[in-house]
């Protein structure tokens, strides 16, 4: 075993081994590629966030007065496309997963380091196409590209945006492929499947979805592009096509895509809760199995987005029933996290605050999912702000909280520096308050009947919209803060020890930051994951908080 030895300054690690632009742009080191991704997705996160703020500002008043109707439609379309395809889907897998999967299983790198770099270049090409489409006029189809609006009626940059997401899809497929092969083939001696951290299980499940689902999205977008360019009559009802076919194909990917966003976040939360409770995880096998069941069942529920679209009653019945089957493994996870805290030794460090926030917001997002899966209620609330609130609770309240929690947890490993703990806790609190103020009123708006994607709205919805807009400005502060202090800490933060949290994973048994090949010698694993009874506490390793 490589033991934790702190060498002051000048020690060689992946950040200082090579210098210069080309050492980054041509790197095949998974950790450097993770940082390339971190920069790019942060860039897109703030673009998408900027669109979101403009949307909220427009909705401050019932009249459509800040921007034109077409501009508003482009804003929410591009907010969705940027946030889903250029932030949420790559977020945890491509940054934290890229950085941590090899470290956690004791490997030197991913199985295909060059394909990993190719993934990032595809992402960048897709990103440039998307930026070009935005700058030259944008796209107004919603992120969902519903036909025949997208194929025959919109006169915006549908083809370029569609192809951009097509390319981004391949970036995602390659990342998934890399993880699956790496997890199968590159585990250190002794790292059996049932000793893997649950973060790895979550990424394994995610990768399966990326591999099996994303090609369907790619095909669907190509069909949209071809139909738009050459009028193929696939989705056009005037010549024998069917617009509902598009929705089936689109949601076959885009529902499982939600699990691409949330599963890695669940993995992060499991790591954090065990570490800051100093406990073995409660129900290891059940959480691992739940991740796989979510990935599998997630493919069988897509048409619950279409209960009022014109499906048969019996199809709707089947998809409603199957949707509840996905809720069970999600519930199992929440119960196991809660049980893990029982008799723990719980510290309220920043990552743990994010994990608390995740459980709270994910639970509310999941519970409101039960409303939407219920046919009778869905008819009333689908396509209203109830849905908007629900999926933001899952994808922002859940996935982004997990991402931020993970960024704080592994920041010492990534950068070799500690972030300022007080600011970290403050930001977590601001994000939690801002998030709830932004999105909770939207549940009420939805039940009242305010449809989504409305540029102007009846005046009785104003009070709740004002609250939501107010919340979004608080949320924005909460998101900018970590970026500022992370940057600050890279220069002024305290030097991090190899294992500042006293955490159990293999990634903490190498130096902070790690060397290019992660471990001086290949670790041999002889213990179960989360063996917190055998790990010295942070106090024992004498780390100042």
């Amino acid at each position, binding site marked *: 075993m490589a033991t934790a030895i702190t060498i002051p300054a000048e020690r060689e690690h992946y950040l200082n081994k090579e210098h210069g632009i080309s050492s980054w742009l041509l790197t095949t080191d998974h950790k450097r590629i993770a940082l390339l991704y971190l920069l790019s997705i942060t860039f897109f996160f703030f673009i998408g966030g900027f669109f979101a703020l403009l949307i909220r500002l427009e909705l401050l008043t019932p009249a*459509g007065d800040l921007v034109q109707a077409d501009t508003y*439609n482009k804003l929410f379309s591009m907010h969705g496309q940027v946030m889903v395809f250029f932030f949420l889907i790559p977020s945890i897998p491509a940054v934290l997963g890229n950085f941590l999967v090899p470290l956690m299983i004791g490997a030197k790198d991913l199985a295909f380091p060059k394909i990993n770099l190719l993934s990032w270049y595809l992402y960048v090409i897709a990103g440039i196409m998307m930026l070009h489409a935005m700058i030259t006029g944008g796209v*107004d189809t919603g992120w969902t590209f519903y036909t*025949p*609006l997208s194929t025959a*009626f919109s006169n915006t940059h549908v083809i370029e945006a569609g192809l951009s997401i097509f390319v981004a899809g391949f970036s995602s497929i390659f990342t998934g492929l890399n993880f699956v092969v790496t997890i199968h083939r590159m585990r250190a001696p002794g790292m059996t499947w049932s000793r893997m951290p649950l973060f790895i299980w979550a990424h394994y499940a995610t990768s399966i979805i990326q591999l099996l689902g994303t090609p369907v999205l790619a095909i669907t977008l190509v069909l949209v592009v071809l139909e738009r360019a050459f009028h193929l009559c696939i989705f056009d*009802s*005037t010549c024998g096509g069917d*617009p*509902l076919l598009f929705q089936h194909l689109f949601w076959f990917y885009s529902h499982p895509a939600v699990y691409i966003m949330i599963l890695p976040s669940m993995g992060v939360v499991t790591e954090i809760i065990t570490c800051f*409770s*100093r*406990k*073995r995880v*409660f*129900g290891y096998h*059940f959480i691992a199995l739940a991740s796989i069941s979510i990935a599998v069942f997630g493919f069988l529920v897509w048409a619950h987005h279409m209960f*009022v*679209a*014109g499906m048969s*009653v019996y199809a*709707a019945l089947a998809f*409603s*029933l199957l949707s*509840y089957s996905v*809720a069970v493994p999600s*519930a*199992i996870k929440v119960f*196991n996290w809660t*049980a893990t805290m029982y*008799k*723990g*030794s*719980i510290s*309220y460090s920043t990552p743990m605050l994010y994990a*608390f926030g995740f*459980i709270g917001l994910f*639970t509310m997002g999941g*519970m409101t999912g*039960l*409303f939407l*899966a*219920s*046919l*009778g*209620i869905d*008819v*009333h609330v*689908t*396509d209203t702000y109830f849905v908007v609130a629900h999926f933001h609770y899952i994808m922002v309240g859940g996935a982004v909280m997990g991402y931020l929690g993970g960024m704080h947890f592994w920041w010492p490993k990534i950068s070799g520096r500690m972030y300022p703990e007080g600011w970290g806790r403050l930001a977590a609190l601001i994000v939690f308050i801002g998030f709830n103020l932004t999105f909770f009123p939207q549940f009420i708006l939805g*039940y*009242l*009947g305010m449809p989504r*994607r*409305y540029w102007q709205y009846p*005046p*009785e919805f*104003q*009070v709740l919209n004002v609250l939501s807009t107010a919340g979004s400005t608080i949320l924005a502060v909460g998101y900018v803060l970590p970026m500022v202090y992370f940057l600050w800490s890279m220069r002024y933060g305290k030097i991090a020890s190899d294992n500042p949290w006293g955490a159990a994973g293999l990634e903490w048994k190498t130096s902070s930051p790690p060397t290019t090949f992660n471990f001086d010698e290949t670790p041999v694993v002889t213990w179960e994951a989360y063996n*917190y009874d055998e790990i010295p506490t942070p106090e024992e390793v004498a780390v100042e908080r």
Partner: protein
Amino acid sequence: MFNNFPLWPTNASTIAGDVDALFIFLLVVTGLVSIAIFILILFFAAKYRRRPGIEAEQVEGSTPLEITWSIIPLGVFLVIFAWGAIIYFHERTPAKGATDVYVVAKQWMWKLQHEGGQREINELHIPVGRDVRMIMTSQDVIHSFYVPAFRIKQDVLPGRYSYTWFHATKAGTYHLFCAEYCGTQHSGMIGQVVVMEPSQYESWLSGGTTSGSLAQNGEALFQQLGCTTCHRSDVQGRGPNLIGLFGKTVALEDGRTVTADEDYIRESILNPAAKVVSGFKPIMPTFQSIVSEEQVNQLVAYIKSLSKPATGVAGTPTIGSPQTQPQNPKVQ
């Protein structure tokens, strides 16, 4: 801003109460479970907070516990599923004898027409206490017919009919929204549903001017387009006899059977080769670009009227009658 600030939507249809009841049940169940989880987490966080000298006590996982907290939620989910499914069946099954309103949606307006021929745009007048069924299609993109006060919503697709129905219980004026994003003026594709007492409704019906009922206009069109050449009522023509067709089960040439509903009649006009009746040849030409969506509605209403008893505003149309001018309805 604060003088009109509702937190619960108006309840103005028979289904609305059912939806609200399930919604409240779900609020209570999920609320209690969520609060229990949150309290437990906060309790653990406080009770087991890190203190010097006190170490965590490792607890083994428990399979019985895992099974318990899988099975109990599953049971609750099945109850929610079944309850929601019952409401949905009800929502999707219109009562027999409902009053039909035909809807053509387009970017960005609702065009509605009553059986008596009264046309409305972005406004729908209906009586309290009667089942009303919407027969809807779109001229362009997908729209969605949504009346929050009735808790009903149905996407309106091009190239087919979609249906929804409701039974209003309270007079008043309610929002009509387009709920499926449909382009630039999506949020402007709104209107109102005016629910009236039956007596007021009758006087509203007779107050407007119409140029004949839907069925009457359909009959005129049926003559004008020469449909009677093949679809004869006296002798067997080259096309099936349409009297009494609506609502029947039809055997097709390829061995399938279909129920002759509005969508079947619509499809048979616009894409006659799709479903050829057993014993007939696929010789009928398409009327795809010859008749508008409104005219299809008139033809459908006419063919439906051929199966109705001799009552209603449409009078007693007879197929193949020499009369080409529609009678004036009871009002001019």
